C-alpha cells in the first residue's frame, strides 16, 4: 500500500522529504544497525522507517533538524520489529538497545568516511583483498575461499578480524588527521 500523506502535502513536500532522506539515510542506517545488528533485517527496517517518516512527515517541525526526528522514529521501528522476532533472534536485551538509542549521535562525517575507507582499502595486500572479496563481494564466501586456499575457515575468520580492525583503525586515523576529529 502506498502511503498517503496529509491532503496539504504537495510536490514540494515530497521533494523536501526526499532531500532530507538523502541527507539522513546513511546516519539512519548506521543508527538502526547499531540498535539491531542483524544485517538481514536492515533493508526492511530502513524501508519501514522511510514509510513511517513519509506518513508522519506533515507532523515534522521544520524548525528542528530532520535527522534526530528520523532517528527517533527509527528507534520505535526497531522496537516494533523486536516484538515480531523471537527472543533468540535478538542480539541485545532491551536495556542495551535503550542505552545505545539514548546516546547515539548523528554521524556528521559520512562522506569523508567513505573516502577514507577507499584509501585504506588501497593499503591492503592481495591476500587481504581476496579475503574481503570473499566476505563482501557478490557470490563469495569465506568457506569457499578457505577450500580454495586449502585452509581452515576459522583461520580466515581470524584474518578477517585483523583486517577489519586495521581498517577501522585506518579510517579513524585518516579522519582524525584530516578533520581534526570525527566525533559528532
Amino acid at each position: 500500500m502506498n502511503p498517503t500523506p496529509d491532503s496539504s502535502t504537495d510536490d514540494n513536500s515530497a521533494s523536501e522529504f526526499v532531500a532530507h532522506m538523502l541527507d539522513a539515510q546513511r546516519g539512519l542506517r548506521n543508527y538502526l544497525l547499531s540498535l539491531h545488528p542483524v544485517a538481514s533485517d536492515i533493508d526492511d527496517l530502513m524501508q519501514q522507517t522511510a514509510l513511517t517518516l513519509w506518513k508522519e512527515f506533515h507532523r515534522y517541525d521544520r524548525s528542528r533538524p530532520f535527522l534526530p526526528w528520523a532517528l527517533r522514529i527509527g528507534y520505535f521501528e526497531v522496537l516494533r520489529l523486536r516484538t515480531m522476532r523471537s527472543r533468540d533472534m535478538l542480539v541485545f536485551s532491551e536495556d542495551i538497545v535503550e542505552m545505545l538509542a539514548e546516546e547515539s549521535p548523528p554521524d556528521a562525517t559520512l562522506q569523508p568516511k567513505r573516502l577514507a575507507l577507499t584509501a585504506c582499502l588501497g593499503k591492503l595486500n592481495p591476500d587481504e583483498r581476496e579475503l574481503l572479496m570473499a566476505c563482501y563481494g557478490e557470490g563469495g564466501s569465506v568457506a569457499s575461499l578457505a577450500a580454495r586456499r586449502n585452509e581452515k575457515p576459522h583461520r580466515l575468520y581470524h584474518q578477517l578480524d585483523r583486517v577489519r580492525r586495521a581498517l577501522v583503525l585506518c579510517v579513524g586515523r585518516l579522519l582524525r588527521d584530516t578533520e581534526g576529529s570525527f566525533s559528532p
Partner: protein
Amino acid sequence: MKSDAPDGLFATLLSRLVSGQLADGDADRIADYLRGSKAARDYYRFYLAVHADLTEHFRENAAAPFPPLPVPARRVRMFALAALIPLALGIGMWSASIRLPVPQVVMVPEPGPMLAVTGFADDVRWNLPEPPAPGMSLSRGVVELKQGTLVLHLTGGQTLTLRGPARFELLNDKEMRLDLGDLSQRVVRSHKTYMIHVPGGVVADLGTEFSVKVAADGTTDVHVFEGKAVASSTDSSNRTRYERILNAGESVRISETLHDSPLAVGEFLRPHPDAVKAPSPAGKSYAESVGNSSPLAWWRFEHEKGNQITAETVGTPPLVLSGSPHVLGTPGHRFIYTDTGDFAGFAATESGLDGLDQPGGGISVECLLHPESEQHMTALLLEDLTLPVPPDQDFLPQRIQIERAGRSGEAIGHVHPPYAIRGMARIPSSYSGGASTYTADSYLARRWVHVVQTHDGKMLRLYIDGKWVNETPDIQEFQGSLLRPVIAVLRPTQDQMRRQWIGGIDEVALYDRVLSPQEIQTHFQALD
C-alpha cells in the same frame, strides 16, 4: 579515540557479530562491554558504520572494489609529487584570497587510480613536473593551471576544457573541485552524474554542456548551453542548502543563496574543439618502412570500394566493413573509427589468410591504436576458421588478440595497470586460457599508440611505440590454421557490443614471421 578498540577481544567479538558467527555467550560479552564504558559504545558504533560502508562500497563497486596496487609507473610518482607540492608551499596563500569550501576529502599521500587523460593543450603552464602533452594520465591531485587551455578526458566519459589561471583537483571518478578559473564540461557518452565542487556550492550535470566560472574571490557563475544542470549552494558543513535546475540558456550565480548571474553568455568558456579523431601519424615514410618488411597482409585504410577496404598487399582479401564503422582522416592518413553509437561495427576479411600460421614459423601483428574510452575493448583478433563453432558459442575460437584493458580486474579478472594494452595468444585457438602480456603503463590515451605483438613459438612479446615492454614464455607449435583478422570488435554480431573498440585503428599489418626489434623501432620512427 573511538577507532581504537578497548581491547582485542571486543574487536574479535564485533567481527564475529558482523560475520554472523556469534558463539554462545558472545552476545552477552558484547553487551557487557557496551554497558561498561562509553568508549566501547563509541567504538561499537564506529565499527558497525565502517562495516556498513564496506558492504555498500562492495555493492556499489562490485567490478573494482579496490584501488589498484602500487605500480612502478613514472607518472604515478609524478602526480603524487604534484599533489604534495601545493601542500608544501602552503595552501594558506590561496585561502587568503579565495573562499575555499570546507575540506570534504581526506588527503591521502598515495596516488589513486587514473581519473583523466590530457587531450589538447595550448600554451599551457602548470605546476606539474612534466610539460603537458596529449595522453598524459592524471590521478588525484591539485593542478594549478597557470595559463593556457587544457582539455581533459575523464574516465567517466566527460570532457573538460579548462582555461588558466585555474586551480582544480580531481577527487574521484564522480567529482572534482574547482577553486579558480574557467571550466567547460561536455558529456559525450557518460550516463553518470559528475559533480563539480566550487566555493560555497556544487554544480552537477544532468547530461549537458555547461560552463563554470570561479573568480578569485570565490564568486561562481554557471551557464548551461545544452541540456540541464543542477546548481546548489551549500552551508558551512558542505550540505546542500538551495538548489536550482538550469535549462539550456539559463545562468546562475552561486553565493550564500542562488541569484541570476549578471555575466553575459559570451563570458563563459565553451568546449575546445579537441582533435578527438586526430589524424593518423602514419604517412608515406611509415608506409615505405612497413613495406620494406614485406608483410603477408596489410591494410592502410586508404582505399575504399563500397563497404570494402582494399589491401596494400597483392592477393590479400579486402576487409569488409560491417555495421557502421567510419573511415576518417585526410588522404594518406586515413584510418577506421568505431564506437558503441553511430559508428558501431567492425572490419573483417571474408576468408582466411593462407600461410600466416605455419608449423615452425612465427607471427607478428602490427597496428596503430587510438583508444578513446575507459572500457575494456578489443582492437584486433585473429579467429580460427579451421575450427567449428560449438553449439554454445556464436563466434569462432581466437588465436591472437590485442586489447586495451579497463581497470584492473574489471572485465576479465586479470591483474594489470588500469588501461593497459594486452597482447594475447591462444594456441591452439580457443575461447579462454592462453598467454597474456600487459604493458606497465596506461593507455586511456587519446593519442596514437604503435603496437606490435610477436610470437615465435616460444615467447609472446609486446612492443609499444617501438620498444619492447613485456614478454611471456609460451612454448607452442603453430597449427597451420586458417586465420582471419577481425578488427575493432570481439564478437562480430550486431547485437553484441561487448568489447567494441571505441576509437581509431590504422595500419594493420600481419606477418608470417617474427619482426626484429630493430625493424619494429624503424617502423615506429617512420611515423610523422
